[in-house]
């Protein structure tokens, strides 16, 4: 599967995502500059973390108007895969490719730490390599990861199985204490209705090798490769 990593001015997890795909997953990958109109034929777009355009105004608000986002929209409209990680998730929400929005953490501070996640729906392009009840150890690093949406939307995405990951404790229990940022229903990741677009605040690309403390992020990244192969 050919991956493309978008580079916005201010992206800072682009090189990490690129490394994870090329050196750990051993799949082909290319950078795509934010002013490109063409996705160079990639199968899966990664919208990486960072502070695109300094996150000024609102996180992700400016980035969504980059020329490349037009191309990403066309790509996903045709069923192409795209995943937004952290700032990338914020950008995809701003671009209305994903439901809801991300606001400031309830503690108002930046939080960087390993958190535990439990998959909420295994039958998606992004979680099919996870096991039922599995607890994934993947870090977060954000100040605005508090997932919000209106009640109607919440009901819809919950009923549709569009919630793919939730924050949980070490035993896999979804509790308020395990919620690092105040997200509704402990939501850590969602997909669009079709399932080909995903967004998640935790960084799977940071948990790809034992020396980094965990390789659980590979479950997410390998899922899309497996899904496309089926």
């Amino acid at each position, binding site marked *: 599967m050919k991956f493309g990593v978008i580079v916005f001015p201010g992206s800072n997890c682009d090189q990490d995502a690129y490394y994870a795909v090329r050196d750990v997953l051993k799949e082909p990958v290319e950078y795509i500059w934010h002013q490109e109109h063409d996705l160079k034929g990639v199968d899966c777009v990664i919208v990486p973390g960072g502070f695109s355009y300094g996150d000024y105004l609102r996180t992700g608000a400016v980035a969504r108007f980059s020329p490349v986002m037009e191309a990403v929209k066309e790509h996903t409209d045709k069923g192409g895969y795209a995943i937004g990680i952290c700032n990338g998730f914020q950008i995809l929400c701003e671009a209305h490719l994903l439901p809801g929005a991300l606001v400031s953490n309830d503690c108002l501070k930046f939080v960087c730490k390993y958190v535990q996640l439990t998959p909420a729906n295994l039958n998606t392009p992004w979680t099919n390599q996870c096991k039922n009840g599995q607890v994934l150890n993947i870090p977060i690093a954000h100040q605005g990861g508090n997932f919000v949406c209106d009640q109607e939307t919440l009901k819809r995405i919950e009923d549709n199985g569009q919630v793919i990951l939730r924050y949980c404790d070490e035993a896999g229990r979804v509790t308020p204490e395990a919620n690092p940022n*105040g997200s509704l229903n402990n939501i850590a990741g969602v997909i669009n209705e079709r399932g080909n677009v995903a967004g998640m605040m935790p960084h799977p690309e940071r948990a790809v090798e034992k020396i980094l403390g965990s390789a659980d992020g590979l479950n997410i990244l390998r899922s899309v490769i497996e899904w496309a192969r089926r």
Partner: protein
Amino acid sequence: MAKVKVYVTLKPSLLDAQGRVVQTALENLGYGNVEDVRIGKYIELEVKENGQTLDTQIEEMCRKLLANPVIENYRFEVTE
């Protein structure tokens, strides 16, 4: 040249964590009568007339970029 003042606020249905902290701080300073604090953004634009209706243009700017309708409300004033 028109001067436009845009006010962006979080929707009332959303918890304003920053506002809550400021309210507590004000209480600690002895202002126990502050019932609520909502923090928003204030944006100033200087806009050249280009024949299009200014209001429609600003409305569009707000919806597209200056505010995120999923979480925010906005209003604006035009002064010359």
